[in-house]
Each structure stands twice: as C-alpha cells, then as structure tokens.
C-alpha cells in the first residue's frame, strides 16, 4: 500500500485484502482470462476505428476532388464517408456493449464476489 495513507485509498474495504492476495488473483487463470478477453477486444477495435478515422481525415485533407464526386443529387462521396463515421461509431459502441455485457461483466462479477466474500 502507499506510504502516505492518502484519502484516495477507499475507506471501504480493499485495505483488508493483503497485497499478496492481489498478486494471487492477478496470476489466476480466471483473471488472466478476463484481462485477455478485454484486451483482445478493445485493442484491435481501437486500431480499427483510428485507422478508419485517419483514412477519412487524409481523404479530407488531400483528396478534395474524390470527396466532391457526386453520388446522388448534391450528396457526394465526402458526405457519405462522413456519415459513415457516425455509423461506424454507433456500430462499434453497440458491439462493445454487447461484448462487455456477455463476456466481461459475468467474469468480473464472479471475481469481485469471490474477493468480497473473503473480507466480510
């Protein structure tokens, strides 16, 4: 624990869990599974939306003529790709929520319940 005894340490209960116990939990297969699942989802997904956004920004900066290509009436490629950014943002949000509800919450909840039962 930190040497300062700062108020940032929640007064509730984690103090009662010894540091070695956190190391044990961290090394446990259940925790590693939770950690890997989280990372295997959020890191690639972050890469995907950042690359997609970068492509859009680069097109916006350098490919004016391409973006100005008319598709339907006065609606052009730039507008469609821009609205595509909205769509992909909503889509990734939905995918993450579904993933977190199904895959993360039950595992995190089980670990939390186990630790909480030890400090009662």
């Amino acid at each position, binding site marked *: *624990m*930190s040497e*300062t*005894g*700062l*108020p*940032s340490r*929640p007064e*509730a*209960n*984690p103090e009662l*869990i010894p*540091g*070695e116990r*956190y*190391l044990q*939990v*961290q090394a446990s297969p259940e*925790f590693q599974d*939770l*950690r890997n699942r*989280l990372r295997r989802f*959020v890191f690639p*997904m*972050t890469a995907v*939306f*950042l690359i997609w*956004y970068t492509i*859009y*920004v*680069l*097109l*916006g*900066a350098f490919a*004016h*003529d391409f*973006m*100005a290509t008319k598709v*339907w*009436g*006065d*609606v*052009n490629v730039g*507008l469609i790709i*821009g609205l595509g*950014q*909205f769509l992909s*943002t*909503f889509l*990734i*949000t939905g995918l*993450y*929520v579904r993933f*977190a509800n199904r895959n993360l*919450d039950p595992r*995190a909840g089980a*670990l*939390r319940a186990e*630790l*909480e039962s030890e400090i009662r």
Partner: protein
Amino acid sequence: MTTTVLAAETIGNPVANIGIFSLFVVVTMFVVIRASKRNATADEFFTGGRGFSGPQNGIAIAGDYLSAASFLGIAGAIAVYGYDGFLYSIGFLVAWLVALLLVAELLRNTGKFTMADVLSFRLRQRPVRLAAATNTLTVSLFYLLAQMAGAGGLVALLLDIRSRTGQSVVIAVVGVLMIVYVLVGGMKGTTWVQIIKAVLLIVGAAVMTVMVLAKFGLNFSEILGSAQSAISGATTEGVAKRDVLAPGAQYGGTLTSQINFISLALALVLGTAGLPHVLMRFYTVPTAKEARRSVVWAIALIGAFYLFTLVLGYGAAALVGPDRILSAAGGVNSAAPLLAFQLGGVVLLGVISAVAFATILAVVAGLTITASASFAHDIYASVLKKGTVTEAEQVRVSRITAVVLGVFAIGLGILANGQNVAFLVALAFAVAAAANLPTIVFSLYWKRFNTRGALWSMYGGLISTIVLIVFSPAVSGAKTAMIPGADFAWFPLANPGIVSIPLAFILGIVGTLTSPDHGDPELNAEMEVRSLTGIGAEKAVAH
C-alpha cells in the same frame, strides 16, 4: 438569395431573450436547491453521492460536452465553410470511442474524485498528483476562458448590448451565477443544470432540424444545393468561390494548412478522453457498468446532435445566407440564432438564445467544480498537507477555490472579450490529448510504466503544446492571430497536436525505460485487479 448587407443587424426582441433565459435560471436554481439538501461530505460535493444513473449521467455528459463553441461554432462553420465545419463534429464524436473502449470503466473502478486519483494510484503520489492537477487546471482554464470570452459576442448579438461596460456586466452575471450553482449545488446541482440544459439544447436543435427539413420537402440533397447556390451568390469577399459541399474551403490550399488540419483532427479524437471535466463525470455513477451506459447515452445524444447541426448549418446558409450571417454582430456564431429567428420568429430565437446562455453557464460550472476539486483534493490535501486533511476540509477548500476561480474567470472573460480566442478550445483539446491521455492509457494498460515516465509525458506534453502554440500563427504573425501586430511565430501550425501528442507518448516510454523503477508489484496487481473487477470501487452514498 443575396440580401443587402445591413450593418450588424439586431434580431428578435432582447427582452424576450432575457426573459426566457431568466426563466431558465429560476427553474435550475430551484432544482439545484432542492437537489442539494445534503452536500456535507466530499462524496456528495464532488460526485453527487455517485447516485446518478447511466442515462442521467450520459445526458449530463452531453450537456457538458456540447458547449457554445460546438453548437454555435459548428453550425456557423458549416454555414460559411460548409464541409470543413462538419469535419470538426466527426472528430468530436469519434473521440468518444476512446473514452468508451479504453478509459471510462477502468477509471471509474480505480478513482475517487479526480483524474489524479487514477494516475497516481501506483506511482509516487505527490509529484504525479501535482503534475496531473497542473494539467487539470491548465486545460480547465483554457476551456473556461474560451467560454467566458465567447459570452461577450453572444451578448452583443442576442441582448443588443453593444457597450463594453454592458457586456462586462453580463459576463460578471454569468460568472456569479456559476459560482452560486457550484457552491450551493456541488456536483449534484451542477449535474442537474447540465441535464436540463442538454435536454433543452437537443430538443431545440431537433425542432429546428425538422423545420428546416420540412421547408425543403425532406430532401437533404435540395438543402445542399440551395446552400451552395446561396454561397455562390454571396457578395462578401472570398465566400462566393467556395465549394461548401466538399472539404477544403477552410483548410485547403497549401500543404501547411492541410497538415494543420490533420493536426487538429488528431487533437480532437484523442483529446476528449483526457478532458478532466469529462473524466470527473464518470465518478457520479455507482458502478463501472453505469459508466459504460453513460458513455453509450452520450454517444447517441452527441451523435444525433451533430447530425442536427449538419442540417442547421447548411440550412442557415440556404435560408439566411452567408452575407447576413457574416455581417451580424456575432459573425459566424450568429448562424444558428439567425436561422432560429427565420424559422420561428421571436419565440424560437428567445429559446435558442436562452439555451446558448445556459450552455455557457452549465459548461463553466462543470469546469469550475472539476478544477476546484482537483486543487483541493490533489494539490491542497496531498501535495501541501501530505494527506493529513479531512474530507470536510477538502470540501471547504474546494468551495473557496471555486469562488477564486469564478472571480478570476470573470476578470479574464472581461479582458478577453472581443479578442480572438477561438483557438483556445482546440488548445484545450491539444493539451488534454498530449499531456493527459498518454499517461492515462499507460497507467491503465502498461505494467512497467513508472513515475518518471508519467512526469516526462505529462510535463513534456503540456510544455511542448503551450510553447508551440505561443510561437504559432494563432498567437502572432497572422491577420487572424490573437496579437496581429506582432510576429514572433516560427512554428507554422496553429494546431500543435501532430508534434506534441506523439512526443508525449514517446517521452512516457523513454522516461519509463530509462528509470530502474519497476514500481511496487503488489500495488500494480491491486490496480489491475481493481480496475478490471471493480472490487473496492467507491460505492454510491446511501440515501
């Protein structure tokens, strides 16, 4: 579509505008007083007792995020620059995925009141807290100043107050109201002000969007066509040749301006998840799952709102016309109010004006409570008093800080009134992205990360961003600069993010690896286990 250019026209009825705004103040003040019967403990004052639901907090986040700059500014930018204004809103929206995927839930699980709680969790408390609090205060101050200075222009447009003294009085009134909201309401009161404001703003924008669409027979393509022909018919110099349907009207041309645009885009997408007043909102919900729900609500509302501004911006170009917008008192910012008047006369204009004022009020209140919490909790309690301070004392210090900040903001707002400080919001995002985000991400996901890495990254990001902006065309050496008379600019970009953000990430890595400090393995384990499972996370206050 061309209208004769009137000398700074006044629109609507100032009395109606003031009346509707006063009604907003009375209603919110009542709600704040009702909601804030209990504000004794630090949990209640700083986090509203962590009792807000995900949807409530999501609406409040939207209220915090959709500042006057993004409502009036983006609608106006679309009206006169077209597509390039739309680019801003995309950066502002996509940025929320960083918050959703990487930051919100883990932050909620490990922190208590401030951003520094998370950053200093497993590092050396005092230096890291001091750095994090310095960044929090800097970002909040830039953001605050931009809002307060913007209030002056809005006053001129909506209340027909032209004298500097009159405008100063209004800025002071806004500042005093904000202080009262924060002192009386704490985080709970501030949150309710943001919720009410967000609902008014989004509903108001939705109504206007429907009215614009109805005028064009629900044909979006026709709005675009009319906007382009209105722009092409403009008599204001340099406007008529713009292609507002494609990118490039504002950032086209030279390679420098294209790189400047990329730099801005980078700061926008990475800045949001490093804004302290956004991060602090995640502590107002009881669990990490509610933090997730709040981001989902925020993304839905903010996304919908930016879609509305797209219609409103092009609608303003088509129906009001660029000449009238540019010659109005607020310049570009007057596009949305002028459109409101065109569509719904005095009443709609009054509502939109009141919403714009409420926006400034709610955003500055959110910034003030964040900055004062960080000062009291991080600098006063941890750095100065070494953790010997009770939470009641922290609340007391925070209240005093809020008053000082409020007075400071009024003074700066009056001084900056009429100055070109539009770059300050972009600067706040650039500082947040460079100085805060690398350390947040590293401390949540990189076990080896240590104190030296954090300090190098935070101070390096902060100093490089500010130095580059001071020597950029935003401050001197250009017609649109803050000090147009002087020229000491040597950095070509008005947006420093493309340099300072990668630099801060690299400094975090280099600082970490050159230090032998591997941290306390038990503390590292505790932080990781707690951030992912929520064990020991701060609970909601029972009522």
